[in-house]
């Protein structure tokens, strides 16, 4: 039994192998190719260049069969045949590739378009770099071949003469959040076939216009930027105002929110002065020294896309809410032993009430003291410990801005963010306490008298 089945297996295997060889030989396109492959089917065979580089001379028949050029004989490109097989010497592998690419021009004459520019202007790129050699495919089937050219140090020259590298490394793209996208998703209208020639004034012009492509997916962010100060500056002709890629990067684009330090450093690119002040503040120090992710960075207060002008009243009147995003958060503040009563105690005070109404009225003209006036803006300091004196010194200066002639004891009229208690503000505490007892006592007494009066009246009737 076993012998019989083994025999059948062996026999069928032999038939399949024989048949496949038969097919193989029969499908080779022409005699010449078959002759060449007679030798070049050898995996061991190679050519050594002058510089010692080796080029395998093996040609895989299947690759050849899949190529667009399968019907050309080897001599169609190589000029070699079995009878005419000159020995040639090349400096290195690259010069061999460049030399052999010349033969493409026998059939493909590039008179215009991207190929013309590539081949005539950028001598370091040759046809085979993009299209391959023996594996050459019809353009339709060749997939995304942008890297074919853009992995080389090709560059573009702008109208003003400056140059910009067009090199894109696969490595950079792999690490970006857009690694699933195709080049043409962002570079709309570009492909190996369609490669319109565009002319930009300069690099900045190119960056700004290219950035417009982001809105095709991120329309929500784009509309936000329209309200932002950076876009407005751009409109006014300040071309240095940042566009999407200036902050997010282009091919290396990463997630916008994950790393707070990186986020702050993006702003630092232009706002160096403020960044260095911030880095000395209680928030900045904590971020930079301990990578604390709880602290606010630029975008937490100024927002990322719809950045408003911090000199406007709207921004100013929103500061208490801004700070309270963290400072009224019980869980967060407990970690640092800070009180969350700061917001409420401010809002209950004169200034807080005024600011709240200015927000609603939208016609505020006066600058009412908000958190940053006493605590600092980018240079926010601790209110306890050695920095407390700085806060105190800021206070009297800030008071005098509105309350001209305020005396030295005037800032004490702000009993900090504490609930009045017997130690800190005995007078306020006692007054509140007396009325807390007296008002209910009085009201209950009066109401009782009224009820008694009505009752007596009813009884008398």
């Amino acid at each position, binding site marked *: 039994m076993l012998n019989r089945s083994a025999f059948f297996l062996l026999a069928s295997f032999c038939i399949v192998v024989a048949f496949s060889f038969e097919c193989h030989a029969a499908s080779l396109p022409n005699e010449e190719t078959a002759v060449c492959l007679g030798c070049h089917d050898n995996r061991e065979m190679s050519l050594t260049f002058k510089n010692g580089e080796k080029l395998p001379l093996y040609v895989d028949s299947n690759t050849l069969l899949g190529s667009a050029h399968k019907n050309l004989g080897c001599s169609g490109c190589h000029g070699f045949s079995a009878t005419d097989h000159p020995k040639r010497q090349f400096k290195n592998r690259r010069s061999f590739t460049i030399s052999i690419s010349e033969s493409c021009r026998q059939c493909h004459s590039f008179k215009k378009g991207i190929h013309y520019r590539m081949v005539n202007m950028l001598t370091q790129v040759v046809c085979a770099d993009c299209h391959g050699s023996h594996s050459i495919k019809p353009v339709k089937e060749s997939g995304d071949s942008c890297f074919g050219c853009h992995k080389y140090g090709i560059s573009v020259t702008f109208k003003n003469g400056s140059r910009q590298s067009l090199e894109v490394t696969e490595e950079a793209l792999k690490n970006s959040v857009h690694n699933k996208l195709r080049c043409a998703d962002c570079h709309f209208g570009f492909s190996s076939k369609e490669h319109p020639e565009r002319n930009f004034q300069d690099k900045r012009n190119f960056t700004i216009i290219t950035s417009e492509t982001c809105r095709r997916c991120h329309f929500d962010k784009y509309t936000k930027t329209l309200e932002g100060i950076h876009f407005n500056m751009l409109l006014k002709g300040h071309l240095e105002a940042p566009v999407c890629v200036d902050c997010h990067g282009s091919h290396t684009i990463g997630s916008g929110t994950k790393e707070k330090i990186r986020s702050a450093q993006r702003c630092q690119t232009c706002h160096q002065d403020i960044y260095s002040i911030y880095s000395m503040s209680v928030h900045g120090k904590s971020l930079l020294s301990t990578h604390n992710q709880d602290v606010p960075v630029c975008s937490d207060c100024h927002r990322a896309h719809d950045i408003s002008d911090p000199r406007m009243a709207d921004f100013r009147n929103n500061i208490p809410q801004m700070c309270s995003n963290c400072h009224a958060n019980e869980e967060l503040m407990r970690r640092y032993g800070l009180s969350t009563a700061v917001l409420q105690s401010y809002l209950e005070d004169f200034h807080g009430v005024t600011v709240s109404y*200015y927000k609603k009225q939208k*016609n505020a003209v*006066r600058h009412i003291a908000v958190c940053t006036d006493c605590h600092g803006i980018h240079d926010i300091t601790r209110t306890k410990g050695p920095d407390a004196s700085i806060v105190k010194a800021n206070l009297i200066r800030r008071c005098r801005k509105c309350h001209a002639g305020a005396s030295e*004891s005037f800032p*004490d009229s702000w009993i900090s963010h504490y609930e009045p208690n017997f130690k800190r503000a005995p007078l306020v505490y006692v007054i509140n306490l007396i*009325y807390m007892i007296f008002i209910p006592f*009085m009201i209950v007494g009066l109401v009782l008298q009224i009820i008694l009066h009505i*009752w007596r009246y009813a*009884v*008398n009737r």
Partner: protein
Amino acid sequence: MTETGKGDGEYIRRFHPLRIIEHQANAIAFIVLVVTGLSQKFHDSSWSDWAIMNLGGIDNTRLIHRYTGLLLGYLTFQHILIASYGVIAKKWMPFMVINIKDFTDAIDNLKYYFGITDSPARCDRYDYKQKFEYWGVIIGGILMALTGLTLWFPTKVFHLIPFLPGQIIPAAKALHTNEALLAFLVIVIWHVYNSVFSPDVFPLDTAIFTGKISKERMIHEHPIEYERLTGVKLEDHSEKDVAETEEEPDIKSAS
């Protein structure tokens, strides 16, 4: 307090027209202060928002509050001057001065309410309830004016009295805001009850509008003054009251 009219048929003159004007001015100022002030005190509530936004914003509201405060302060000041002048120079009778009888009257009235005695306290021109309100308005008015000015001119206070601690400003605010609430509640509960909803005067005690009071109410509420004005002794009336009140508990106990 200053003028006591003569018996005029069914009605007796109780208030001089100037006192009526004074009361009305006080009432208007008080209402404006309550609206503009309490809406600041309870700034979180929606009706405060409504009031403040309709008054043209927080700055306008404060402006109205402060100048109305000045008016009320002025009225209080003027009243004290006139009353002092009247009592000292014109020998007006100091009806508003609190005396021991006011306390005994209050206790007597309570006894009456509880059914321990059979008749209410017999009062003069102003009963203890009215004196309580009057002195509340005078003392409260002075307090509110002083604390209000402190809050209006917070830096000037320290120039005026340099040794004051900074705490005086929040203390003034605490006093102002608490006293305001107390005054508001007393007026809304006590004054409005006594002059509108009390069964004695319902639907409205018109004395402060017409300046006149009916003889009947005068005899009932201010018997001592009535006796002094007319020279008539009211013993019969009180006896009659006693007789009436005696019947009632019987009915009550029967039921």
